């Protein structure tokens, strides 16, 4: 099976960095005025430093494209952390194996309690999150979790360890509709510096996961880079290339991109290449202009002000009221969490802010009524 | 023995092959394709393909067309 690895093999990180740096304002304007679908070269112009003087035009076009495709809506979802057990050592992650924190994997009962609580807040779309420890959380565990929660929610997405095609098909049958798997960085030669041990240290296995998801027929695939590790402009060009490759190959599948951003000075891992909020906005608009149909998702890592302001300008999906620890909704002790959140408003408060902007909060992505 | 070639009747000796038919029709073999009863007979097998009375032989070649 040919995968994105074949495409990546002929891409050169430094060359692409230089190509981005050499983009001019004319390249940006040409990309903004493209009559046909933008190509990756256009995307390079939009994320380039040259585009920083065209942010208003980018925001305006992004708003128009988002409105046309998604209307005045904002989709809300909430993560439920099922487990923080992990055999990987990732330098930026609170769940990293060498961190001496209490480890927990939810039982079926605990899952139901968390699920019913967040359901009572209005959520119908839930994202199930785990670390990567196949001894504690294997595909059987995940399948039973999906089956257990299926009656409670309209939609179940997963952010768990990369799996095989056959495992993804099992999850699909069980009722999962979307899987998010973030490459973190496409800079292959330094990938190992961040992912020192565990299966996540194997670059190719992770890189080819979206191919396996496409092969399995997953309805939606979520991509992302962990912003702050390597140069965000270069990483996003790799991601855009990956996205375009996937869209053409797995044309029955929907795609989503998220923007997990390591914020500096939050007491977590100190990002080597931090991204400002202005740059994050540029990146969001670049993706929207590159791909008008793409779902763009923003988590509670970002501040309430930023999230409220960027809504309608490109972002279509927001998490809300999130806790990043297993059992985090039903307990008050949050010592198990993966990262600290920056928007701690309740679901209701977020929904009200959305309505105040003239947008409709949507609690589920699609209705499963026609699916077996 | 009589076969139908491109809609018209052709008389052939018993045991005649596709090769014999093409020669009898004085066709330049280059660029031809022959089918007997809607089954392709490759050029390499023309001299082996014996025809029988009533066989439908189609002989085509490329021509102008969009």
């Amino acid at each position: 099976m040919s995968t994105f690895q074949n495409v990546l093999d002929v891409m050169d990180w430094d060359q692409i960095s230089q190509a981005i740096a050499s983009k001019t304002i004319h390249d940006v304007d040409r990309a903004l005025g493209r009559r046909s679908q933008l190509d990756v070269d256009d995307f390079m112009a939009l994320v380039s430093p040259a585009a920083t003087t065209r942010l208003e035009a980018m925001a305006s076009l992004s708003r128009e494209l988002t409105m046309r495709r998604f209307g005045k809506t904002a989709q809300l979802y909430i993560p439920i952390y099922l487990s923080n057990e992990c055999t990987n050592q990732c330098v930026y992650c609170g769940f990293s194996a060498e961190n001496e924190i209490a480890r927990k994997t939810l039982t079926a009962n605990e899952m139901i309690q968390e699920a019913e609580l967040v359901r009572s807040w209005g959520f119908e779309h839930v994202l199930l999150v785990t670390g990567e420890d196949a001894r504690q959380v294997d595909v059987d565990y995940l399948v039973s979790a999906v089956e257990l929660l299926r009656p409670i929610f309209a939609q179940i997405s997963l952010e768990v360890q990369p799996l095989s095609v056959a495992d993804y098909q099992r999850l699909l049958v069980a009722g999962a509709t979307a899987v998010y798997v973030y490459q973190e960085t496409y800079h292959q030669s330094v990938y190992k510096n961040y992912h020192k041990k565990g299966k996540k240290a194997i670059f190719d296995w992770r890189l080819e996961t979206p191919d396996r998801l496409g092969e399995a027929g997953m309805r939606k695939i979520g991509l992302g880079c962990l912003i702050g590790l390597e140069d965000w402009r270069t990483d996003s060009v790799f991601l855009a290339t990956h996205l375009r490759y996937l869209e053409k190959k797995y044309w029955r599948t929907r795609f989503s991109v998220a923007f997990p951003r390591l914020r500096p000075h939050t007491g977590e891992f100190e990002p080597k290449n931090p991204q400002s909020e202005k740059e994050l906005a540029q990146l969001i608009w670049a993706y929207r202009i590159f791909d008008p149909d793409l779902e763009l998702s923003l988590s509670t890592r970002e501040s309430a002000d930023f999230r409220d302001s960027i809504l309608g300008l490109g972002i279509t999906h927001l998490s809300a009221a999130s806790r990043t620890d297993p059992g985090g909704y039903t307990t008050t002790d949050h010592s198990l969490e993966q990262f600290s959140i920056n928007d701690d408003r309740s679901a209701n408060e977020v929904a009200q802010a959305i309505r105040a902007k003239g947008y409709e909060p949507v609690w589920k992505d699609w209705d499963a009524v026609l699916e077996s | 023995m009589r076969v139908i070639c491109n809609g018209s009747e052709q008389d052939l000796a018993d045991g005649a092959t596709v090769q014999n038919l093409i020669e009898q029709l004085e066709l330049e073999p280059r660029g031809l394709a022959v089918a007997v009863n809607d089954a392709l007979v490759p050029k390499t097998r023309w001299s082996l393909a014996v025809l029988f009375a009533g066989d439908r032989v189609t002989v085509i070649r490329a021509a102008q067309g969009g």
Partner: protein
Amino acid sequence: MKPLIIAGHSFNSRLFLGSGKFSSPQAMLDAMNASETEMITVALRRVDLQGKSDPMLEALKNFKGQLLPNTSGVRDAKEAVFAAQMAREALGTRWLKLEIHPDPRWLLPDPIETLKACEILAKEGFIILPYIQADPVLCKRLEEAGAAAVMPLGAPIGSNQGLQTRAMLEIIIAQSRVPVVVDAGIGAPSHACEAMEMGADAVLVNTAIAVAGSPAIMGRCFRDAVSAGRDAYESGLPARHAQSAEASSPLTAFLDKL
């Protein structure tokens, strides 16, 4: 202009020429030379037993490019498979323009039979270029079935109406992993240029060149239109509307307040 690659073969010309409807072999030769085409479609016909060879085909003997036999005249997948085998035998090529139009009036292609035939012929090793409606989903299905390129129509064949299917062609071009050759309906060099500007990989022109007052001149005009359109596409067309100076920044002001 970048070369066009189909099934690993490289072409410097992005203008395919249909060989039908020319008034004489010489007219076709002149158009062929002037257009600098490297791909000419030919049909299959029953041999005239009265011995006359087709002078048009004699004229093509010296053609250095790729002959692309078509299956025109067939009405379903079964007939198309048979025609394809005959074409491969007659011309010694695996290249095939797959066209199935059971409808004699508009000559519109049958998508269901075309997909069926493509699935079978791809397994037999043909390099298949299916002529089809400008249907984006069908194009993806054909791509998965092994088509080497897709040939969506711009308008009914021979109608010279230009890119009536423009909106669909844009989607096809945007999502195709194989070359997109706009076929049928291209009645003027401007139509061909427009298709190339949109990002089509090639165009196929027949009637407009064949029935022109001077096929040679028209062939040259199409050559120029196709290369101009392609070059424009590759070099990046300018913006639709000039970017106005940004006196105010109502949408980005929040970034400065954060």
